Structure formats: C-alpha cells, structure tokens
C-alpha cells in the first residue's frame, strides 16, 4: 500500500491504516517531542495525545499543503512547545540551542541516556556544529527561516542553501551506514 492510499484510508477513519502510520512515525514524533520537553513520561503522554488529535482531526490534513509526516510534526512541535510554555519557561526559545541533540554529542558517555547515542553519532559525524544547529531549529523547533537566521546570526537568504548542504551531508552519512 502506498503512503497516499494509507493516508486516504486513515482519513476515512480506518484504524488499521492508523496503526500502520503509527508504527511508521510514532518513534520519530515521540523523539522530537522528547528533545523539546525532556521529561520522558510527559513526552510519551503528549505524543499519545498528538496521535489522538490527528485521528480526530484527520479531515484537516490536506496533501496539497505538505507531507503527512510534516503535518504531524507541526502538531507535535506545537504541543511540545505549548507544554514547556505552560510551565512558564518564558524564554525557552533562546535557551534551546544549548540543549539536546546538539548538546548530547558533547556530553560524556555515561550521561547519554536519552538519545540513541551511537546511532545518532554515526549519523551526524562530520556535520559542522552550524549544521546541527540549523537542522535542530528548522525541523525540531519549527523555526521559520527568518527566526533561524536571527538565532544563528546569518542572512535570511543563506538559510535555505546552508540547510540544503547540511541535509545533503546527512544523506551521505545515511548511505554509508
């Protein structure tokens, strides 16, 4: 079954299709939430809520506006950011970059409990820190190009091309594994 027809079935409230999509994306979505929220138990709950939410709002997904995964990713990021906002992390956006998955690579081994550290290291080896940061901001935090440019102190026009070369490196690493 292709992804498109799976998503079609899901929109018709087919639980089997939902189960397949869940097995395809739940680890990713929970992972993204975890990197933002950090608390494992809460992240699992929020992640579950996100999937319940997409089930009930499957009508609002429109394939002409983006990928299915991107749609869930957006909802998940919003839910996670909502969670830490509600805990009154006032300036959370500014403090992000020092943490997770950027930071995790620099920590001594015994502290690496939250990430699949070995797999992650292989994947982002030889990626420049600037690359890890830009990927984190755009994909894990949902920053717009403008916001990412401000955060990284680079011109808006270079965000797209820098990010592309970073993702290309990531793709090379993936193939070598």
């Amino acid at each position, binding site marked *: 079954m292709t992804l498109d027809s799976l998503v079609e079935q899901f929109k018709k409230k087919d*639980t089997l299709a*939902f*189960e397949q999509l*869940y*097995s395809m*994306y*739940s*680890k*990713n*979505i*929970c*992972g*993204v*939430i*975890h990197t933002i929220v950090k608390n*494992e138990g809460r*992240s*699992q709950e929020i*992640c*579950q809520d996100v999937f*319940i*939410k997409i089930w009930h*709002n499957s009508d*609002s997904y*429109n*394939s*002409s*506006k*983006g990928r299915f*995964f*991107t749609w869930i*990713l957006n909802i998940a990021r*919003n839910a996670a950011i*909502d969670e830490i906002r*509600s805990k009154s992390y006032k*300036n959370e956006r500014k403090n992000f970059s020092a943490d997770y*998955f950027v930071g995790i690579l620099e920590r001594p081994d015994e502290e690496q409990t*939250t*990430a*699949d550290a070995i*797999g*992650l290291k292989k*994947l982002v080896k030889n990626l420049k820190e600037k690359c890890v940061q830009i990927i984190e901001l*755009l*994909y*894990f935090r*949902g*920053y*717009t*190009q403008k916001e990412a440019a*401000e955060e990284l102190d680079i011109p808006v026009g270079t*965000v*797209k*091309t820098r*990010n*592309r070369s970073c*993702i290309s490196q*990531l*793709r090379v690493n*993936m193939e070598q594994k």
Partner: protein
Amino acid sequence: MIDIKKYIASGILEIYVAGVLSEKENLEVSAYAKQYPKINDEIIAIEASILELSKRSSNIQPYPFSEVKDKINIPKEPKVLTLEKEKSVWPMYFGWAASVLLAIGLFLTYNQNQELKSELEVVSKENMFLEEQIATSDTSLEKAKTLLNTIRDKNIDVVPLAGQTVAPDSYAKVYWNKQQEKVFIDAKGLPEPPDGFVYQVWSLKLSPTLTPTSIGLLDTFYEDDNKVFALDNVNDSEAFGITLEPSGGSEGPNLEQLYTLGVVAAS
C-alpha cells in the same frame, strides 16, 4: 517549465519538509512535486533523512498502539453502573451534589488552583488548534465559514479599536465571547511589526484606576496569513488596547507605542 535542477538546489524542498514555508509556497512545492517526479523523489529522500535523524534523536518508547486505540474508541456515553436493589440511590445523588459543590469551590479558588491550571492548558491548546485550523483553511470556504460563525455567535461582543497617535491609520477589532472567556483579535489593520518587536494585547480596567492586564502576544503575526488570533480573556474588561513591545512582551504596556485602543460599550 521550471529549471528542476535549480529549483532543487535552492533548498526550498528541505524547508518544505520542515513545514515552515508559507502556505503559498507549500502549495507551489506540492504542485511541482505532482508534476515532476524528480522533485517528488528528492522530497522523499529528504524526508527519509529527517525520519532517520528524528528516530535516533531519543530512546523514548511510544505507548503501544493498543493504548492509543483504546483512547480513540472510548464511547461518549458514561458507563452505567448497576446498583443493588436494596441500596438507596440517595447516597449517589449526595455524591453528585458534593462533587458539583466541589467543582464550584474549585472555580472560586481559581487562581491558586493547580488543577484548573491544567484545564486552562487544555483550553489554550484547543485555542491553538482552532487558530491553526483557521489559518490552514485560508484558501477554502471553510475558513470564511468558521470565522463567520465565530463572530456571529450571539454571545460575541464586538469592540472596534481605533488607531492612536503613533499609527493613526491602523485599526483592529476584538470579538469577545464572554461566556467562553475568549477573544478573537482581527489584526489585519495593523502594520507588520518591525524585527524584534511583537504586538501585545491588553485588557484594561478604567476605574477606579487604569489597570492594564496582558492577555497575550500576537507573536505569530509574521506567519499568520489571516491575522486573526484567539486569546483567552478571563478579565472583566472595560477596554482593549494593543501596544508594540520588545519580543517576548512586557510586564506593562508602553503607552507611547499604543497602536489601537477601544472601549467596551456598556451593556
């Protein structure tokens, strides 16, 4: 005919997968993806790398699907409990009455109450979701209908905000649903805020002294196409104002940067 190589090299497809393009650009990219298989393949490859990365970003284990399935299949009707015949139902009524009283009590101690905070969280999540839905249905009739229904609600008070000294041409409207303690700000008539600044909405009490209370930031102004923002307002507002504040908002309003202001008509 577009230059496919150049289009791919621009890096727009990576941003598309991140989900942070404008709605117009999103429509453009997906139209090209349908038209040109090369572009579609590239998008899938980019997505695959992000899937791989996000999968490895954490060791977290999602709940098994059975739990999610249980939650989505919960029947709306509460379960009926069978009581033994001899037992009076009065204790149950008392129980219900007591819990209703308790619920009222909780409302009264609103501000100190942690549990209600979490209820507020849910409401604000719903708000966000509603707002997201309003925004994403921008091109469709759906959006017009939703907006229209929201502002046609009989419980809505409309408060026009007029431009002030710093921006005499600007204007905004507040649709206030007192019952749901929500306000919808139509900010289409405000100029785009300069970098590093954000609009902040204030509920004002006029007497005995002018007391502003922040009810939220329009911090997605740049991305939001329809410029309608849903915020919570539990205040007994007598007027609403919108000021320009440094990113992150301020404790109190900067009245020199008061863009719009309007008084709630006495009912």
